[in-house]
């Protein structure tokens, strides 16, 4: 292994610019003659707009223009995934306007844009906008929404987007009828706000000379935005629309989607013929960024007398919010229910999902997307079943694990896992967590009046999204391949154009390691370019831990083409047969001779083709590849959390968090560990701290700022114990699986199971996320009252 190749902890190439304040985020960009936009949002959860009077706004200082829904008559913001009902009929798909059309459906819904010479002027003028709202009753809570609550969309009185199922309910019920033991749980998967530290921003621009629009935006996938906004919303053809996602300050899913503001500034720039910058304030981000999770689930696990899982049935209500965000519909279905086998051999599984419209911010994928929800309910059920049946937590898991020699393993919920060793990750995590010493630590804590608990989570997830044929058959309206272009310059340096997008993942380093390793050139000679539709041929972007498994594979495919072409050039120069050329360590050599040629010389020759046989050999050295994976990838592992609870205050301290993950081959262990640590923090955030809370009457988001929404801070978290245990992905050349989401997927149930473990003897059998101090304290008081009453 070279010190910059595959497996090396190469320090990041991108860090110098970020550390010296030279990052280039969307709000850092200023265009000549730029104006500023302020979006006026609905203060109501549900209201009819009787009229809007813009006259005072137009007269205000510095105002350039104001546009409302009446002005902006464009296409619906599309949903990227159609899901069918049980009976085969298509889902309900309401019109999703960029600017409200006569009605607002959630607090924060876009009503108008005010454009002025300065941002302060736009914001000042926006206060003069007179909107005559007629407030309507709202459906905030999902249960109410599906039980006769006010219709979010007039043409969908049921508030149901779809009623979908996977599996044979009758078959599963029959298994339950004969089960030795049934464990049941009602689960709330709390609603989260992704909160990347960089708020969303967008700059729209129109070039009157060329008729070309440009959108700078905080996106994880600029080509997808170009496609959705260009083809569906604004009808701008691709060759007249450039989308640039420069440095992006974190995404976590919430920057995948095509947002109204992107269309508004692009469209309005065409109207006023000047660039318009819009930057979201955090308060607005809370009511306009897509939220995550928000499921209510009833689930049951059937076991035989030996503790083997014999059946699982899961009934979920998933909140869609007021409109269908880009990937919202696939999250609780294809990203969730297909994961319900987990790491276990459960033979029959049934899942029913009702997707519900409410007068709340749209809900879509957030780090993990569907898989954390599946893992959470499953691992809570397993934990509870073990307690009810008196089986140790590790033993019940080992008893039900998919055997290591059973791969490829076909689950009853459509997926085929290619590789894994769940016994190894469980054992590794147990060692890291010093499970053997737990009893002594618990006793010591008890001597201080504190309660200790240990919680397990053994999980698998499906990522490396995704085989286009599979997702297409499941309703995806796009392919999920990736592209890469390798441009070798005449002096042997390389620029890679990738459709993956880095917003913290370190692609500029990891991808450069692949190139350096494959071509045998110094890593400094490799640059990774991404995020600009005018530079990169095409790209599906970064989400679902797909960058390396799909984007990296596209790059490897293109690199192989480069090597093949370079061999032909070397063969020509060295007067040998291309089949006799070997490539190693950056040198092309003729087998069995001392004739060789360095990579740089081949590159130069490619561009100085003085005596090329042009009908056989083209000049230049540049290759393009598209890669569509054969399967999802399946990282898995074990997270063990140890907590100490102060029963007087209900404060839960995470004293130890151990994660042993199998993410396939590790290209850069430093970056992989960083990704896992970040995921763990978000998982712990969900378990202990975070949760969006709506007022059920007014539909106001009650914790829409960092004063009330608890973001994990440094002193909320411990140092993590992170390790990796490799089984290689069987269907890609690198053997990689993906590491971006494992931390957030695996950890939440381990935290809650640990809390339940700590409180079980007091009579607390369940606690919902987030397990805040007050919730834990109340649970302890309630249990004490119940015991006193007995």
């Amino acid at each position, binding site marked *: 292994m070279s010190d910059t190749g595959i497996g090396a902890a190469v320090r990041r190439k991108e860090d110098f610019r970020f550390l010296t304040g030279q990052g280039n985020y969307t709000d850092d960009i200023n265009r000549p003659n730029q104006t500023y936009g302020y979006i006026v949002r609905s203060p109501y959860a549900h209201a009819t707009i009787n009229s809007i009077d813009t006259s005072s706004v137009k007269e205000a200082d510095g105002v350039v223009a104001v546009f409302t829904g009446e002005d902006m008559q464009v296409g619906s913001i599309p949903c990227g995934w159609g899901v069918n009902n049980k009976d085969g009929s298509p889902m309900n798909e309401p019109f999703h306007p960029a600017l409200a059309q006569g009605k607002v459906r959630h607090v924060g819904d876009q009503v108008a844009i005010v454009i002025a010479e300065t941002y*302060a002027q736009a914001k*000042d003028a926006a206060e003069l906008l007179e909107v005559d709202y007629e407030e309507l009753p709202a459906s905030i809570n999902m249960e109410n929404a599906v039980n006769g609550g006010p219709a979010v969309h007039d043409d969908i009185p049921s508030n149901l987007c779809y009623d979908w199922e996977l599996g044979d309910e009758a078959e599963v019920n029959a298994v339950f009828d004969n089960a030795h033991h049934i464990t049941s749980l009602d689960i709330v998967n709390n609603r989260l706000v992704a909160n990347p530290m960089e708020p969303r921003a967008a700059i729209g621009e129109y070039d009157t000379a060329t008729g070309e629009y440009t959108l700078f935006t905080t996106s994880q996938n600029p080509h997808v935005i170009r496609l959705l906004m260009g083809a569906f919303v604004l009808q701008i053809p691709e060759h007249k629309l450039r989308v640039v996602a420069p440095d992006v300050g974190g995404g976590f899913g919430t920057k995948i989607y095509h947002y109204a503001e992107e269309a508004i500034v692009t469209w309005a720039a065409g109207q006023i013929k000047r660039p318009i910058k819009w930057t979201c304030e955090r*308060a607005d981000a809370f009511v306009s960024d897509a939220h995550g999770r928000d499921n209510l689930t009833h689930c049951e696990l059937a076991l035989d007398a030996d503790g083997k899982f014999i059946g699982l049935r899961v009934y979920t209500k998933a909140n869609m919010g007021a409109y269908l965000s880009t990937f919202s519909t696939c999250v609780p279905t294809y990203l969730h229910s297909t994961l319900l086998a987990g790491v276990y051999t459960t033979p029959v599984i049934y899942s029913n999902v009702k997707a519900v419209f409410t007068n709340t911010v749209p809900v879509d994928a957030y780090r993990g997307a569907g898989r954390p929800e599946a893992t959470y309910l499953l691992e809570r059920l397993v934990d509870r079943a073990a307690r009810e049946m008196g089986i140790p937590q590790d033993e019940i898991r080992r008893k039900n694990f998919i055997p290591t020699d059973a791969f490829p393993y076909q689950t009853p919920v459509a997926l085929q896992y290619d590789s894994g060793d769940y016994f190894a990750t469980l054992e590794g995590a147990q060692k890291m967590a010093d499970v053997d010493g737990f009893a002594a630590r618990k006793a010591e804590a008890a001597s201080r009046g504190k309660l200790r608990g240990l919680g397990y989570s053994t999980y698998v997830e499906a990522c490396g999204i995704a085989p286009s044929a599979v997702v297409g058959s499941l309703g995806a309206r796009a392919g999920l391949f990736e592209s890469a272009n390798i441009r070798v310059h005449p002096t042997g340096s390389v620029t890679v154009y990738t459709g993956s997008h880095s917003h913290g993942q370190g692609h500029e380093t990891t991808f450069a390691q692949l190139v350096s390793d494959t071509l045998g050139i110094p890593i400094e000679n490799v640059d990774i370019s991404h995020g600009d539709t005018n530079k990169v041929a095409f790209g599906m972007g970064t989400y679902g831990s797909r960058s390396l498994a799909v984007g990296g594979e596209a790059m490897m495919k293109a690199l192989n083409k480069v090597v093949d072409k370079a061999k032909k050039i070397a063969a020509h120069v060295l007067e040998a047969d291309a089949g006799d050329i070997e490539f190693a360590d950056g040198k092309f050599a003729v087998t069995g001779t001392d004739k060789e040629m360095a990579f740089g010389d081949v590159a130069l020759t490619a561009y100085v083709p003085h005596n090329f046989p042009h009908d056989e050999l083209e000049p230049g050295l540049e290759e393009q590849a598209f890669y569509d994976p054969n399967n999802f990838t399946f990282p898995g592992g074990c997270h063990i959390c140890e907590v100490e609870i102060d029963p*007087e*205050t*209900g404060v839960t301290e995470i004293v130890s968090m151990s994660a042993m993950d199998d993410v396939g081959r590790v290209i850069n262990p430093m970056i992989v560990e960083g990704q896992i640590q970040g995921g763990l923090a978000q998982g712990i955030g969900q378990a202990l*701290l975070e949760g969006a*809370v709506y007022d059920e009457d007014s539909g106001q988001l*009650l*914790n829409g700022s*960092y*004063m*009330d*929404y*608890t*973001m994990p801070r440094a002193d*909320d978290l411990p140092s993590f114990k992170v390790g990796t245990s490799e089984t290689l992905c069987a269907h890609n050349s690198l053997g990689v699986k993906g590491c971006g989401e494992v931390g957030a997927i695996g950890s939440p149930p381990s935290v809650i199971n640990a809390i339940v473990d700590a409180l079980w003897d007091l009579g607390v059998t369940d606690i919902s996320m987030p397990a*805040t*101090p*007050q919730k834990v*304290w*109340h649970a302890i*008081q309630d249990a004490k009252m119940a015991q006193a009453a007995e």
Partner: protein
Amino acid sequence: MYEFNYDKANSAADAASKLAASDDGKVLAGGQTLIPTMKQRLAAPEDVIDLASAGLSGIAVDGDIVVIGAMTTHATVASSSDVQSVIPALAELAGNIGDNQVRTRGTIGGSIANNDPAADYPAACMGLGATIITTKRGLSAEEFFTGLFETALDEDEIITAVKFPKVDSANYQKFPNPASRYALAGVFVAKTGSEVRVAVTGAGNDGVFRAHKLEEALAANFSADVVDISPMPEDSMIEDLHASAAYRKNLIGVMTKRAVQAC
């Protein structure tokens, strides 16, 4: 933020007269609350009078009294060897207000004048029996703090200093709001001779208050055990997303016990 006029005061008297001359003026101390409030357009003063050059910062010890100028930052109070030696609990409290950045800008006068129901300094003032010195008079903490974000200050009156008497022992325990880190319940316990004062912040609907029954119980027997059997203030407890009234009541008890133990 809305437009406003900005002016600097070169003394407290200057600030007071400028305030008197303004229809809707605000004095700017450290700005750590006023500026965020103005940013959110929740405050819209016409005139903002900056006290930075009014000469109001500094710490002096006068016998058994610590006098802290109104513009003294939390960081200065926290690191003051005078405060640390005379009333260590006060230095400790100041060192736990907000975060590092708030502490280097935020001031004692600003905090007290704002009387946020979850702020820390009001508990210290009430618990230690401080006197708040203004451009017009001296007020006891009980007189000064009149309700939620309300004080006895006149429209044109400015805090110039706060006088804290030395006590035998004192301690402040704060249970922070997990999101904002303001006090969800903060209890300042001070003991001098047989007198015990217990001041509670973060929990009361009317802002900081003294828990008189607890004080009486602790005056009779200064031990953590009596907290369990003493009646907690029942009414007027804040109830919000982060803490029910019952939970806040519990926290007051727990924080009081811990403060008593640390005294």
